[in-house]
């Protein structure tokens, strides 16, 4: 083998090592979502969060392997890819034979899909039926996310709008907005948790049970984002990932500062959850621009996202019940991030054919028309994502509602999903100061207790 060839191969491998690292970090984000959601739930719903993440991650993996990857990255037409199903060796995907590199990139794509799916459930905590996860995860992993990913990153509709591509570096829109729109669809059909609004429709705080777990979730997500954004370079040339990572950190930091300050000024308290939401919002905001903007723009993008998330959470809470703030932190911040590219994209960094950000049109020498055009394209990506994801999601959740049901009965909600859907509290030893649950699982299933048969006198019919 010639040295040139060796160097080319090692270069490809170096790229894949970097993608592998990034992929593992993005997988780790599953733990981030797990703990963010568990922390923001009451303790009677702490265990279900574990089962949810595991089952979702699993189903999403199989759906992506069997169908989703093919639709997203299998070449094909402007709407969907048409190769790479049941991903296997000796297969041709989008005209190329499958290699170890393909496998690595396919896995990295899965990691993104799984993050997007995890976002969906943020609005549904503490009342959704477990079966809903199973059904929607299949549709999401096989169809919903792949369609959006194909449109932007797979050579689909949004990769060329009148010559301009949508610029979404790591998925403010493709991943985060998609998840948030799914979350909105679910929420509209689910309604709020019992007790969230009083008789007059005023919202009540339903505090989650563990801020330390929320903190664990936030910091894991933050760390994972270096893989999320940093790995979206897909290669290591000029150590450009370093620039992307620095932008990511600056925006996250500014997000925390923006949110903490906003919530402090509103209420004299540095709300722990809001500080966390600020970090997430900053990160979501920088996800699209990470590879397209200069360092100075990153803290601005993050700061806006952080302030935005506080006001959005407060406003949204008045009407709909979003326990973790997914609509705000992933939805609105995702939109902001996608549009922010149109404002701040630096001429030296933009994709081929794309316009620079408005900033450079106004304060610099770039064409203002092209800048506006690009901003329009970014806006179109938001609309497209919203429309496609919302349509399929609402249809899917509606189907679930009409068949297996979307929401648990009130008694199960009061008792908590842990005991009612999983047969056991998430903290079995905790003295659960909660409305009681009259029975465990259906009698037929419950085998007689090992210790002693339930004595007949205790039966409800007695006396």
């Amino acid at each position, binding site marked *: 083998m010639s040295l040139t060839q060796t160097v080319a191969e090692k270069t490809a491998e170096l790229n894949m090592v970097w993608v592998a690292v990034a992929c593992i970090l993005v997988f780790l984000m599953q733990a981030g979502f797990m703990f963010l959601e568990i922390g923001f739930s009451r303790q009677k719903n702490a265990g279900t969060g574990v089962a949810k993440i595991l089952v979702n991650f699993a189903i999403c993996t199989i759906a992506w392997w069997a169908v989703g990857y093919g639709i997203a990255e299998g070449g094909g037409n402007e709407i969907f890819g048409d190769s790479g199903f049941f991903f296997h060796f000796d297969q041709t995907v989008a005209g190329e034979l499958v290699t170890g590199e393909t496998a690595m990139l396919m896995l990295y794509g899965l990691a993104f899909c799984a993050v997007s799916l995890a976002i969906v459930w943020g609005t549904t905590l503490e009342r959704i039926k477990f079966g809903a996860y199973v059904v929607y995860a299949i549709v999401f992993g096989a169809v919903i996310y792949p369609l959006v990913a194909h449109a932007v990153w797979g050579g689909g509709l949004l990769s060329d709008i009148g010559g301009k591509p949508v610029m979404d570096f790591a998925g403010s829109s493709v991943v985060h907005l998609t998840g948030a729109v799914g979350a909105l669809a679910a929420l509209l059909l689910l309604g709020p948790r019992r007790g969230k609004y009083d008789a007059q429709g005023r919202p009540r705080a339903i505090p989650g049970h563990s801020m330390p777990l929320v903190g664990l979730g936030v910091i894991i997500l933050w760390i994972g984002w270096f893989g999320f954004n940093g790995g979206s370079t897909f290669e290591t040339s000029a150590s450009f990932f370093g620039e992307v990572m620095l932008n990511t950190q600056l925006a996250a930091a500014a997000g925390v500062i923006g949110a903490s300050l906003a919530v402090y000024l509103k209420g004299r308290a540095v709300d722990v959850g809001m500080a966390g939401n600020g970090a997430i919002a900053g990160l979501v905001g920088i996800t699209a621009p990470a590879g397209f903007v200069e360092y100075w723009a990153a803290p601005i993008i993050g700061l806006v996202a952080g302030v935005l998330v506080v006001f959005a959470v407060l406003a949204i809470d008045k009407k709909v019940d979003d326990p973790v703030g997914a609509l705000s932190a992933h939805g609105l911040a995702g939109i902001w991030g996608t549009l922010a590219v149109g404002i701040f994209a630096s001429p030296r960094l933009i994709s081929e054919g794309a316009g620079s950000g408005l900033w450079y049109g106004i304060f610099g020498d770039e064409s203002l028309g092209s800048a506006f055009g690009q901003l329009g394209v970014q806006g179109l990506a938001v609309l497209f994502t919203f429309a496609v994801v919302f349509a399929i999601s609402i249809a899917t959740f509606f189907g679930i509602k009409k068949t297996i049901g979307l929401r648990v009965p009130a008694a199960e909600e*009061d008792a908590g999903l842990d005991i009612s859907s999983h047969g056991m509290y998430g903290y079995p030893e905790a003295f659960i100061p909660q409305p009681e649950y009259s029975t465990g699982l259906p009698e037929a299933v419950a085998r007689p*207790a090992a210790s002693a048969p339930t004595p007949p006198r205790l039966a409800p019919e007695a006396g």
Partner: protein
Amino acid sequence: MKKIEAFIRHEAFEPIRAELLDRGFPSLSILEAKGSGRQKGIVEHYRGSTLTVNVRPKLKLEVVVEDEDCQVVVEAILRHARTGEIGDGKIFVLPVEEAIRIRTGESGHEVLQLHDGAEASA
């Protein structure tokens, strides 16, 4: 003076508290309890095995009032704690011989609640 001890469902407490407050009985205490009665225990599932829990979480409400107020409190509890389902709980009334407000050291039934007029103001 009487002490009213009631074992109730957790969800019944808030309406009881609100009504008692309205009627001039702001002072009360609660404790976490577990109990058994006619209500069956529940069967928990864990790693494929089962576990019968024979006591269910209840809230124990304690209110000390003058003899003549006893009925009012009992009625307030009955009104909000009754669902008609097994497990609603029980109320017990015990005699109390003395009551002392720690803050002031004064004793007697005037320390018990607010309803005797003069005390209540902004």
